[in-house]
């Protein structure tokens, strides 16, 4: 009692010495070449997506740059060359730069994008030796011909780091709203095609499961029938 009550805390902290640790070793692929699996919906390095026919999705609208709270995105749009369009439609992203010394990976750009051109991957462990390297240009951000993010020389990619990000999840169930579950709102994407819907967005999974399969089949059929969307 009294003065010794204050010493209870010392007992507690001493006891913690023998407790289990709640944190683990950092596994960033450095020492034992092991990288921890990232959780779903993680926000990491961005990619600029392309349609299945190789067209870029970005239309240079600068909405991502406008919404960016860290002012890390710089976009300039330009008119598509008529003989060799870069993107379907009138305009395309002529310059696209993201400064990763500023980016806070809030994912607002992904939310703002009207064509789902920009999405995120789970890669977040970058290091640079100068400030110039931290600015990713469009050449580095845009997906390769296989539709997968480019594995740049200084990046350490592991399997699965380009999947199941927040944008990926939303693609199959927009806004997480139950009435949209299974309805593919996104157009086909290079490397992935039309993605299968993710489960877990609605209260009754068993019931919607059949519908989900049906909708996907229908959507795929529709997409292949009219040869895409443009």
């Amino acid at each position, binding site marked *: 009692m009294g003065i010794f009550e204050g010493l209870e805390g010392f007992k*507690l*902290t001493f006891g*913690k*010495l023998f407790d289990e*640790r*709640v*944190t683990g*070793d*950092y596994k960033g692929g450095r020492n034992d070449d092991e990288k921890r699996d990232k959780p779903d919906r993680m926000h990491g390095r961005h990619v600029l997506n392309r349609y299945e026919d190789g067209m870029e999705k970005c239309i240079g609208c600068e909405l991502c740059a406008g919404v960016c709270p860290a002012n890390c995105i710089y976009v300039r749009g330009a008119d598509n060359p008529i003989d060799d369009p870069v993107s379907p439609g009138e305009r395309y992203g002529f310059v696209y730069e993201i400064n990763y010394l500023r980016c806070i990976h809030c994912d607002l750009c992904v939310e703002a994008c009207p064509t789902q051109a920009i999405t995120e991957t789970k890669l977040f462990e970058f290091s640079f030796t100068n400030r110039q390297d931290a600015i990713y240009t469009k050449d580095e951000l845009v997906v390769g011909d296989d539709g997968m993010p480019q594995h740049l020389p200084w990046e350490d990619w592991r399997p699965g780091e380009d999947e199941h990000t927040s944008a990926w999840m939303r693609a199959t169930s927009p806004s997480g709203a139950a009435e949209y579950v299974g309805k593919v709102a996104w157009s086909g994407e290079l490397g992935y095609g039309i993605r299968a819907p993710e489960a877990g967005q609605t209260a009754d999974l068993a019931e919607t499961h059949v519908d989900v399969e049906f909708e996907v089949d229908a959507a795929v059929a529709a997409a292949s029938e009219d040869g895409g969307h443009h």
Partner: protein
Amino acid sequence: MSFLSILHALPIAVDPLFVGGVGLEEVLIVILKVVVAFVMLMVSVMLMIWFERKLHADMTNRMGPTIAGPFGLLQTLADGIKLFFKEDLIPEERGDPLVFRLAPYLTLIPAFLIFTVVPIGGDFVNGDGTVTWFGNTTHLQIADPPIGILFVLAMSSLAVYGIMLAGWSSGSKYPLFGSVRASAQMVSYEAALGLSLVAVLIKSGTLSTHEIVVGQADGWSWNLWVTGFIPFIVFLIATTAELNRPPFDLVEAEQEIVGGFHTEYSSIRFALFFLGEYMNVVTMSAIMVTLFFGGPDGPILFLDSLGWAWGIFWFLIKVISFCFTFVWFRATLPRFRYDQLMDLGWKLLIPLSLGWIVALAALEVGRDEDWNRFLVAAICFVGLMVMGFLLNSAVAAGKRKRLAGEGFD
């Protein structure tokens, strides 16, 4: 009369190294001792920072540094190297660049100088703590000045200047807040620190650190017991405040004033503050061991001829346990509020150690004069109780007045 013979004439301990005159050999030995002490202190600081991070992590269910070196031991080295290559910013316009550059050394150098008077080894059970190597008999401490403890107090007061001037010369508001807090806090607790020391000095009858250790040459004559435990408690709390360590880290309270006095510091100058701070932790632990825990005193289990090495061993054990205590404080106690800090210092620690000095002195005089020991103790006890009551009611009355709005403010 030569300088040495003056020293011999005084009733003080002179390092036996210089008894036969000072030649090249003696000078070399002193230089060797300084170099060894400096290197050991630097390494111990490195290990202390690692120890603190690791232990604090353990006490909060975390891992602590694991990457650099085995068990993360080289983390401090890595941090040091990183800091060394960082850009060094100096507030040229608003601040005072000269003082700004000077301040880190003002905290670092006293921390090292304090360590010079600490006996770190030697056999105090079977001998007088001296060792004989290559025909030279010496103490296992760099210097044993007759004013040993006063030197420690002087140096720990100097360290206040480092922190004060650092905050002032930054020319920025948060560092200034930090340095104002630092000066108030460190001056307040210096009083309690000095007063609790007086109890040790009354019992030991000397200022020399070597003599103080010789006087505690057996576990039961440690000043911890002899002075009655209270001075040690006061000293421990006052030291924690002197070191600006939690729960008394108002000086650099991150949540309130960014980083306090070192907000504007960067690069190697920041590293120097860091170094000085942790060196202070090690040296003040060593001082506490010297004053209250018999320094290198401890049982010699085997190998009698290596008694001095056992001294070093026990000394290290004791110092590490104090370092552990400081980390334990940090992991356990939340930071004091400023008025609580001042209350604790001025209304509890200082009166307590003052009263304890009076009681100890009375008992000491009573023993010399052959008075009735129990009577003296009883009178002391009653006197202290009365004084405590008076102080308490004075404080309570002051508080009542203040709350009623008719007092000082």
